């Protein structure tokens, strides 16, 4: 019991430290050092890690998902279209984009979630490309010309109380986007953590390890798979919507196969066995590229070389360093 209380207090403390870092320390340090460019980088890391978290969740039910780019793109367009064509405020489009993606993923997931292994991986890879081609072909997306000059998020008020100010009036909209992104990231990972550590997590694991057996003990595997996939796509959609708002534009190529692959790699790098794997993976992979920008033409060489070394040293992801798992 005391042991448990101990670990609980350790947990609470580390969460508190983490929150203090992302919400207080980072802005203070950035202000002190004047490195305001880091806001965007960290915002990206936060958003991409939300999308990667979705991918991680599908890994958790035993599916390699290389299709998250499709939902990020979809989410971006849903938000952009609602804001630009229908005059919506940005804020309601955020959940709507997520829900739209979740709904779409249910329709798509029902047939394709029956696939396993590399087959599922490839179908989702194709899905990313299908999304891009659809964005090019559909009239509502403005095709190849993309959607540009999307207004910044306006004020959000509830009962006359302004909770979030109009981004356009802010002197530092980067900070605002950063806070928005990390808030969502914290929420997203809290949800993930809870999912994984509740019975649902065990159920997901049972899918990952043996679907036939899972169904023989009465688990509705089709339902659970679709739910997990929908949650995953929801994350993708939300991340995409915010990116559209930051760049104030969206194109069919805003999220491509490369992004889908990167989301997957983020999960691998962080570690498939750890809820916070995708967050760390994204930080290292995305931030790493940025940090290496001084190396000029050797950037890609060094970047990929480091990736290979990391893989050789920590094949089970970065987090396996902190929390080693046993391999028989």
């Amino acid at each position, binding site marked *: 019991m005391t042991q448990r209380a101990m670990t609980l207090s350790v947990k609470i403390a580390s969460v508190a430290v983490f929150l203090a870092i992302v919400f207080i320390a980072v802005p203070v340090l950035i202000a002190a050092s004047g490195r305001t460019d880091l806001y965007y980088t960290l915002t990206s890391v936060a958003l991409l890690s939300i999308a990667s978290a979705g991918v991680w969740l599908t890994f958790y039910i035993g599916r390699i998902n290389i299709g998250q780019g499709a939902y990020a793109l979809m989410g971006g367009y849903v938000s952009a279209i609602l804001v630009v064509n229908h005059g919506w405020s940005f804020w309601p489009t955020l959940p709507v984009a997520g829900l739209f993606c979740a709904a779409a993923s249910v329709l798509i997931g029902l047939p394709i979630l029956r696939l396993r292994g590399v087959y599922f991986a490839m179908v989702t890879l194709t899905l990313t490309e299908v999304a891009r081609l659809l964005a090019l072909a559909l009239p509502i997306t403005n095709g190849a010309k993309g959607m540009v000059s999307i207004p910044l998020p306006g004020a959000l008020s509830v009962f006359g109380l302004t909770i979030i100010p109009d981004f356009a009036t802010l002197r530092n909209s980067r900070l605002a986007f950063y806070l928005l992104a990390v808030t969502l990231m914290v929420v997203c990972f809290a949800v993930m953590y809870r999912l994984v550590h*509740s019975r649902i997590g065990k159920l997901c694991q049972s899918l990952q390890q*043996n679907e036939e057996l899972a169904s*023989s003990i009465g688990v509705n595997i089709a339902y659970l798979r679709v739910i997990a996939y929908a949650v995953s796509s929801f994350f993708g959609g939300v991340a995409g919507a915010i990116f559209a708002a930051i760049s104030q534009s969206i194109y069919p190529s805003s999220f491509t196969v490369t992004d889908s692959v990167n989301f997957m790699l983020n999960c691998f790098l962080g570690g498939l066995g750890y809820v916070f794997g995708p967050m760390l993976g994204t930080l290292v992979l995305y931030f790493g590229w940025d940090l290496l920008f001084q190396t000029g033409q050797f950037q890609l060489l060094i970047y990929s070389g480091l990736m290979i070394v990391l893989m050789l040293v920590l094949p089970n992801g970065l987090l396996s360093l902190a929390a080693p798992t046993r391999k*028989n």
Partner: protein
Amino acid sequence: MVDLLEVSGLTKRFGGLVAVNNVSFSVREKEILSVIGPNGAGKSTLFKLISSFLRPTSGEVRLKGERISNLAPHIAARKGVVRTFQETTIFKNMSVRDNVIIAHHLRSRANLFGFFLGTVAAKADEAAFGQSADDILALLGLASLAGETARNLPHGHLRALGIAIGLATNPSILLLDEPFAGMNHDETMRMVSMVRRLRDLGLTILLVEHDMPAVMKISDRVVVLNFGQKIAEGTPPEIQANDKVIDAYLGSEDEAIGL
């Protein structure tokens, strides 16, 4: 006694092959019925049909008069028809105890959302399942292995774990596919008495097994399949004396090799 399960005219084709051919029989409540037959006779296929893992080409299965063929496996499980697998099938990377706990899924009263929120019902489930899992493991003599990762178990214990998983679902009829394979005599006999005890607790059991001493000892009745067809049905002594069965399956005794 009442017929709990009724199999009528069940047929399954794989391409040109008729794996199960017009098989009919019924299972009474609280009965232990064994299905035997040569390798490839269609026994496992029959089990898959009954537990809705496969859809029959024709024929049907009824549970207490209700048709249960053509359902999804998890629905059949919900109705109380649960099978174990011939291949040792477990959740490899979970602990033995977790394997059994998760198999309590059907007994949970909280729903997915409840699990997520950690409601009172979910917590109660959790505690109850843990207790029940420990009981089941103790019953099957796996208690000392509760914390071991399932993939590391030796063959024989894997089979026992498979049965533990089946039990945890609280079925009304349990289909055991070669549960004694890979167990020595002593272990087999312990399992036999365990299965009998389960029957006494109210469970109906369908069994596929090649271990004849065990089959003959445990079964109330035996159904024999050959090339997908039922060739005999009867009590153990009747089956042991049946020439067709001896010819197709049992072989005549051979002292030289102890069989």
